[in-house]
């Protein structure tokens, strides 16, 4: 049995990624988190930036060989919990479509989610009774943004629907046999008259467990490619990734502790508000920055990482909030408390669409540092 132990603070994408990679390197991992993290608001795709050479300007520099290795490992990791990530074939950065019809960059994308490196005509499908279904507005925006044709079709409300149905309820319904056959039949009907071959995009509610199977069936029914575009919150793509990933981590012996961390000390030690305390050989701070709740903004505008009691910046501008975080991954010095994901500053994923690269680069670097001090 391994003697190396690690604590991960936070259960968002950075925390999960850290946990998996620590396990692979033989650590025993305890995850401390107050709540679920942002996975349920994230579609599950990894972005890389607007161009493939964006990494030149990243705060952490990796060579292109290191990047391909990183993405190779990521694909393998996703495969281990049952999600197929698709990497772009060519040098071009693919885009996905959003709930309002914009095209935004993506990179490694779960196979249920639409991604394409060229703008193309699409069929947008709306479902009556689904709050996020706004096909008319979505198609209008897509037409303007892509310069391509956007067809709109609307499916009626499913039988048994009522106003309390949110995305999770829709997904659960479509996971069942009745839902699956309802969808196949209504979609086949709705696609009549829409030119053949044009890919179809559906709101991301096509099941939680059987998504891949459902989409394959629908592609056969529609005789064209059928995939999903992600919605906001809860984002079913992220929920699928989260649930499958967590299940695997539990099987692999990870201990998940719910509680609010109050303080992180350089030992490293994490103190919870309920009085419990945890120690390990290294601690990865994946507390998500201001968004994740690990950092606070005070009334006079200071951005403070409360856990390590350090001011990391000031909120003077509207658009700067995201880029603030620790300046060094080794945020307390000593190489045992390491900031990953949004807890690290210098990246601006909202502007640069490089959140996925940020996760991979910070987590990989942090792991290198853990192993360094343990040697």
């Amino acid at each position, binding site marked *: 049995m391994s003697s190396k132990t690690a604590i991960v603070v936070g259960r968002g994408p950075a925390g999960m990624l850290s946990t998996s990679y620590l396990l692979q390197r033989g650590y025993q991992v305890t995850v401390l988190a107050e709540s679920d993290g942002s996975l349920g608001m994230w579609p599950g795709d990894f972005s890389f930036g607007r161009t493939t050479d964006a990494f030149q300007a990243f705060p952490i520099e990796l060579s292109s060989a290191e990047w391909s290795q990183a993405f190779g490992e990521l694909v393998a990791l996703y495969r281990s919990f049952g999600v197929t990530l698709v990497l772009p074939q060519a040098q071009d950065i693919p885009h996905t479509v959003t709930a*309002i019809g914009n095209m935004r960059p993506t990179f490694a994308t779960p196979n249920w989610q639409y991604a394409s490196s060229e703008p193309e005509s699409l069929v947008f499908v709306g479902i009556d009774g689904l709050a*996020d279904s706004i096909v008319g507005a979505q198609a209008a925006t897509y037409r303007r943004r892509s310069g391509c044709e956007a067809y709109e079709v609307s499916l009626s409300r499913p039988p048994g629907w009522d106003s309390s149905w949110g995305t999770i309820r829709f997904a659960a319904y479509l996971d069942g046999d009745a839902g699956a056959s309802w969808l196949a039949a209504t979609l086949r009907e709705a696609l009549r008259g829409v030119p053949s071959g044009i890919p179809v995009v559906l709101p991301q509610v096509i099941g939680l467990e059987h998504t891949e199977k459902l989409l394959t069936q629908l592609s056969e029914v529609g005789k064209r490619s059928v995939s999903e575009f992600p919605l*906001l919150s809860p984002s079913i793509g992220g929920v699928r990734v989260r649930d499958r990933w967590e299940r695997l981590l539990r099987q692999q012996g990870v201990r998940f502790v719910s509680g609010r961390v109050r303080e992180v000390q350089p030992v490293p030690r994490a103190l919870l508000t309920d009085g419990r305390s945890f120690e390990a050989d290294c601690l990865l701070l994946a507390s998500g920055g201001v*968004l994740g709740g690990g950092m606070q*903004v005070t009334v006079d505008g200071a951005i403070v990482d409360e856990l390590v009691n350090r001011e990391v910046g000031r909120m003077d501008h509207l658009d700067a909030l995201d880029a603030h975080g620790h300046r060094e991954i080794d945020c307390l010095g000593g190489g045992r408390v390491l900031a990953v994901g949004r807890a690290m500053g210098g990246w601006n994923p909202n502007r640069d669409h490089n959140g996925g690269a940020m996760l991979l680069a910070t987590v990989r670097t942090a792991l290198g540092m853990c192993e360094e001090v343990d040697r």
Partner: protein
Amino acid sequence: MRVVVIGAGATGLGVAWDLVLRGIETTVVEAQEIGSGTSGRFHGLLHSGGRYLVTDPSAAKECYEENMLLREIANEAVVATGGYFVKKYGDDDAFEARWLNQAADLGVPVHAEKVGDLRAELGMLTESIQRSYWVPDGVLEGFKMLSMLVRAIQSRGSNVLEHTKAVKLRLAGERVNGVEVQAPEGTRVLDCDAVVNTAGPWAGLVARDWGLDVKVQPSYGLMLIFANRRLDKVVNRLKSPSDGDIFVPHQEVVILGTTDVAQPSPEAPEPRRSEAIRLMALGSELIPDLGSWRVLRGFNGVRPLYEPSGVTGDSRKVSRDFAVLDHGERDGLAGAFSVLGGKWTTFRLMGETLGDQLVASFNVDSPSRSREVPIGVEVKRPAPVVKDDRGALLCECEQVYESDIKPTVSSPMQLRFGTWFSMGPCQGTFCAHRVLGRGDEDGFADELATLRREREHGLTVVGWGANARLIALEQSISAQSLGEER
């Protein structure tokens, strides 16, 4: 007789309503949207007059009378909460004495309230209250009142035109006989016999376009909105009107206001964080625990204060009373009028006063009826919506369903007439696209961006604690989930 009214705020619609009731064909032209000026950005207080008893007695008396009247004729848009004036130890005794005297003289009902009872009712108030008084303050539902006025005006065959800006007068000799307006369809002239400038803080600019000098002093005020209706009465500080001394409960929230800063421009400036912090400090003189209340956002409104002598400076000293100018008498421009200053609470009286002067100047005998005729128009109520006909739930914070969204209106401002979407804790982060996406498809992306910008600015002034996290969430949802450019 035909009249063009410039500006569809409280004043313009109050004027139009009074004229329409006199049988005068009236067209209201509004450069932006109904209520997009000060009337959509005010504190929501239906004044009892209490606030102005000492500093502005005529405004106080008018406010009280209109307050009582609106409860009769526009009950649907008024909530008779009642309010308190509280005097802390150390606040000026002489002011209190004058305040009580004025209340008696002007007939504004004021009852002493035992401090113990008050604190039993509103436990969050400071312990250092010396005396307290009840007054008939209330809450004015601004958007509701505006939409009632629009419906009432339209139901009598007159018109309110949005996105229509008055640019020039057309004259026949010394007399107005038309107003040139710019609208998306182009420029045209509306024939009329008289024109009324009710452009609120813009009224000085409108008058300048007419070649006249009218001193309107725009003065902005910041208000902070707190989540949860923790108070259900208005609470005022009993001292000379000042900053941060009133709390008004409004639907599910409480609003603290305000400040008073003179500025040259009629446009509402972006709220400033330093001012929000100051307002929090002032508010906590009444509610010590205010710092722990969740602030939803801050917003500025611009008062259209009228300063007849043209002396500007301390805007709190400019009267809250209103003035009607007959530019025929004053400047030799017959048929042109301006209605300046005033309060939301006195919009009807301002309409009546203008109407009286206008018909008199045309030697027409047509008395005002706006005192008697209810503003609420009988609308055929749709059959009560059964649970599953409400459609999808679009805004979880404010429980707005698809069926609450009227398909004919599309702009965010108009949607707010009927619903409170995007006003709750998430500030539209999760629901704005759902609601706007059901409206005008081509204008959708722009409207969404505009709404988000407005919400973000409102949040940023109070961007600490939970709000900072919400801003981060909003920004990340907008960029990463919706793919909006930042």
